[in-house]
């Protein structure tokens, strides 16, 4: 299990999802907090490449032994690639939530939406407020 961290180069959605923006593309995943709350992941219900995702809407599910959690799209776009390694070995998300444990890569259709996401400091505050 990785140590708790919220990298400064990512943007965060209050549903405990992150986005790493690279031009008109982005990579999505779930935060350290989300994977810790779930426990060891045993299933990733991956979406299909080519399908579209809408900001604030569920695009996949992750499951631990005891729980199922919807994964929320932090931004809108079209899925370019699904992380097949996570579908094979979902515990990768626990080990490296911001690296090897990414979930999908998307082409952004509404890049302007990024302005509504939190930076790392705001997300840490959000977590603290949730207590």
């Amino acid at each position, binding site marked *: *299990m990785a140590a708790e961290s919220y990298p400064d180069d990512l943007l965060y959605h209050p549903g405990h999802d992150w986005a790493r923006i690279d031009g008109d593309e982005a990579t999505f995943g779930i935060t350290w907090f989300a994977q810790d709350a779930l*426990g*060891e992941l*045993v*299933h990733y*219900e991956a979406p299909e490449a080519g399908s579209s995702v809408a900001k604030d809407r569920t695009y996949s*599910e992750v*499951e*631990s*032994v*005891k729980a*199922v959690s919807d994964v929320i799209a932090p931004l809108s776009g079209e899925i370019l690639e699904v992380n097949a390694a996570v*579908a094979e070995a979902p515990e990768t998300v626990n080990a490296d939530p911001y690296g090897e444990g990414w979930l999908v890569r998307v082409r952004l259709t509404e890049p302007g939406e990024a302005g509504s996401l939190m930076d790392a400091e705001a997300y840490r505050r959000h977590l603290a407020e949730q207590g």
Partner: protein
Amino acid sequence: MQTLLRTPLFDRHVALGARLVPFAGWEMPVQYEGVIPEHLAVRRDCGVFDVSHMGEFEVEGPRARECLQGLLSNDLDRIEPGKAQYTLLTNEDGGIVDDLIVYERARDRFLLIVNAANREADLAWLRDHELDGAEIRDVSDDYALLAVQGPRSLERLDLPEAPAFTFADGEFDGGACVVNRTGYTGELGVELLVPTADAGALWDRVVARGAVPCGLGARDTLRLEVCYPLHGNDIGPDTDAISAGLGWVCALDKEFTGASVLRAIKEEGPAQRLAAFVMEERAIPRQGMAFLGDDGEPVGVVTSGSHSPSLERGIGMGYVPTALAAPGTELTVDVRGRPRRGRVVKKPIYQREERNGG
């Protein structure tokens, strides 16, 4: 808001970093390090569970035996002092008020260990049906119970081998306890009963001998792999023992509450059965999901479902029409709108011997 009860080991669970959840009115550890490592510790070595939330009743007196024979499905005449028996408290409809283990301390003195969630219901049921000459006492608050389970459990505690479903006074590292050769994991193991005041010292001695602290999460996955029903999920007041595959704990040649209903169900054959299944596609079945027929309509319901840490795939139990209950039958589970294939298997889903092969 109702205050959650705490076992005498609560502070130890907190100190170990357990994740605590409400369960049957108690604040209980669901996991420490994680469900999977705890589960595997029990399958491969030894784990310890605080199950002090479970209820204990003493039934004593010249008519104690007669009283229990009329209320419990199994036949007490099959056991003797020093032996224990898995049995059901049944209602008039043949439904299951609770499943429990009865310990025969003497011909006229018994201990019942019951599900925490049913403590009040059981006590009310027993009091409503008690006989003069059979005194029923709820002694749950007087006792703590630790389940020490796994292939190395006896060796780690230096306890002698004993047949399953026996119990005796025992002792290790200078402390006494009642050693029950019972459990809920499918592994070799014991359940240690001590006065509440001795619980902390007993836990410390067990952990010092290398038992891995395990939470209710692993307890659930372990019992599901070996198809032990969970009351409230797989069995309950509205399900009967025959459909649940518990006919083997119903002595239908004696009289007990609901026996005539159960005889009739057995005679006619139950319309549905509690089947065990494994998923053939990648998906985790969960309680409440529907089994789908060929036409896509629901034909049954999953009563317990989980990822199996031993088999590394989705497993479960659920009620299906008898025609679909035979091992090998293909089943479709509605996983949040996605039909996923599974197959009925012979119980238990996981067998201890499998470990030797791999």
